[in-house]
């Protein structure tokens, strides 16, 4: 930690946010800024390497992981607006280097300093007052990585409950996967879609008008199915809601 006692945060933007939903990145920046943190977004980042890792391509996963480790080593903390990417860095990077002790040590150091955005806001920055107003009934989707890999369950709910005007309605069967699974949805589109439909039917059952989650992959996946089902539910990343940036049609809403 630097001597001013304000930790410097490296924001891991995630490839999906970078490419598809930059507003999530700016929302994350706004939240961290307002909470008084010092945030930098290192340029030398691409992706956490999950596509390679999940396909069994260990070599490329290692090369990409080393790149992330190098880019983020200098920060006191690393924060990512995604449970899945956070889980990759904090739970899987150390395992990737069983044969390279030096890199494993570096991976472990990074792992201990890497946090999912909502967990960081709630647990480290003790954010408990509302930064926004959102007059909507909202349901929250737990990503499997957030819920099971990281144990991040209460934090997003706590943060959402603090938002003025927001009513939180819990989703049934919230521990069940939405069927995205990264490349799984590419390799097994029919199965993935069937799982997703079960999930989005439950979203519709809540009668919430907004679906919120902390993993863009799950949200984009469900957005497609909700649109197909003719649902009017709008979808936002939790950072957008917390930062007061959840305006407009939401994820996948553009041009509809």
């Amino acid at each position: 930690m630097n001597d001013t006692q304000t930790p410097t945060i490296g924001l891991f933007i995630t490839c999906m946010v970078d490419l598809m939903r930059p507003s999530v990145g700016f929302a994350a920046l706004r939240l961290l800024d307002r909470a008084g943190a010092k945030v930098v977004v290192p340029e030398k980042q691409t992706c956490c390497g999950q596509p390679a890792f999940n396909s069994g391509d260990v070599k490329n996963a290692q090369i990409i992981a080393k790149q992330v480790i190098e880019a983020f080593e200098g920060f006191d903390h690393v924060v990512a607006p995604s449970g899945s990417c956070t889980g990759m860095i904090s739970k899987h990077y150390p395992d990737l280097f069983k044969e390279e002790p030096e890199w494993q040590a570096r991976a472990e150091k990074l792992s201990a300093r890497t946090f999912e955005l909502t967990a960081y806001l709630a647990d480290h920055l003790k954010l408990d007052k509302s930064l926004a107003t959102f007059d909507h009934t909202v349901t929250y989707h737990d990503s499997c990585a957030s819920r099971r890999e990281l144990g991040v369950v209460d934090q997003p709910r706590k943060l959402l409950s603090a938002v003025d005007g927001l009513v939180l309605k819990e989703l049934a069967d919230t521990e069940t996967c939405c069927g995205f699974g990264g490349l799984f949805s590419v390799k097994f589109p029919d199965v993935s879609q069937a799982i997703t439909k079960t999930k989005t039917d439950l979203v519709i059952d809540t009668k919430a008008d907004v679906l919120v989650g902390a993993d863009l992959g799950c949200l984009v996946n469900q957005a497609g199915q909700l649109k197909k089902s003719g649902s009017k539910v709008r979808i936002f990343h939790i950072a957008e809601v917390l930062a007061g940036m959840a305006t407009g049609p939401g994820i996948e809403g553009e041009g509809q």
Partner: protein
Amino acid sequence: MKHFTQDHPLCHDFLKGAKKALDDDRLQAQLARSLKDGFQKKRLKGMSRLPEYQDLRDRAKAIKTHTLKNLDKYLEQFEAQVIKAGGQVHWARDDVEATKIIIDICKSVDAKTVTKGKSMISEEIGLNVQLRKNGIEPIETDLGEYIIQLRDEPPSHIIAPAFHLSKEQVAETFHEHHLNQPPDRDLSEPTSLVHEARIELREKFLQADVGITGANVLIAETGTALIVTNEGNGDLTQCLPPVHIAVTSIEKVVPTLEDADTILRLLGRTATGQEMTVYTTFFTGAKRNQDLDGPQQFHMVLLDNRRSELLGGPLHDVLGCIRCGACINHCPIYAKVSGHAYGWVYPGPIGSILTPHLVGVDEAHLLPNACTMCGRCEEVCPVRIPLPTLLRTWRNRAYDAGHPGGVQRLGLNIWAWFAKRPSLYRLLLRPAVLALRLMGKMRPFNLPAPQGSTFMDRYKGGER
């Protein structure tokens, strides 16, 4: 080692099998009805009455870890105790040896029919097919196994073989096969189905020359094997015929009776939410002079089938499995495709780890990939097997063996090439996305319209 009773899609046909299951409305209704409100709810109820659940899991894991480390010792001890109790022990390296041992025993007593208790090992070694080839009629006595035997289907679940069928489908099957029963009888209630199966089976129990069962746990200190059932068919199969053959795999052994008790306390609860199954049968050796009943001959067939190769390797932990089925019951993939899509005897997460080992990674490489890595299986496994990690081990091996190939691999390689070069990636982000799309038929609605330029471009442009 691909012996289903009928022409059945195999593991490499997973996509085809999955499609078939997704298009089957009756199956989908059955899965939706019976997984969440059946297995999952019952398990939760079972757990809620077991405050020491987490401790028990640790104990079960410790028992398995210790036993597997000393497997040879406990197997030898078990063998010695079985022999002392008047039984015989047969070691089978693989399916061919196991079926030969069993058939030779059957032939030695001139067996015409054998009754069978439910046994996944019997499915693994394709026993029924071999018995028939040798003129011996196997009769399945577990209700679920009996139903699928009538239908000439493989099991779709390790503890509920006919899980894919609704009670209406079972009634149809009985009407079709039980021709000596009045055609207009009412089979609309499960009780009437059970009653009819009991009538049909009772006669066969009495006629059988040999009874064949599996074993859920082997107890080294006493030479006892035990089976759990909810129908009592295991008892009848084990003690009515003059010869009893129990066939199971080597990793089922535990050191003591108390250890078996720990396993039992978890097994019923995580499988079906039952504190105990309705019947828990312990059998030790053959009938002694002073015993009122029991088989004249007791044979224990212990199957390795490449399990010993797993000891100490990256897949070692899978040998701790007690076959409770919880990982299957909580798998989102299984919930949509059911068991037959997996193309071999063990479905779901546990199957996707065992099957590639037993039928080869070239045949089964799709199975460990047919998983969203949601982690629910590991969360519910009573012996804390890290199933996702083991599935990953297979993904790595599959990748090294060239799976996936073709356009999927090309897409991945192109993506990785860019991901490893941040500045080029920035420059040529769009081609990288195109590569990702190339990797397969992207679901057309999957990618939303990006919000203009990338985050990084805007951030570098000074936006905050």
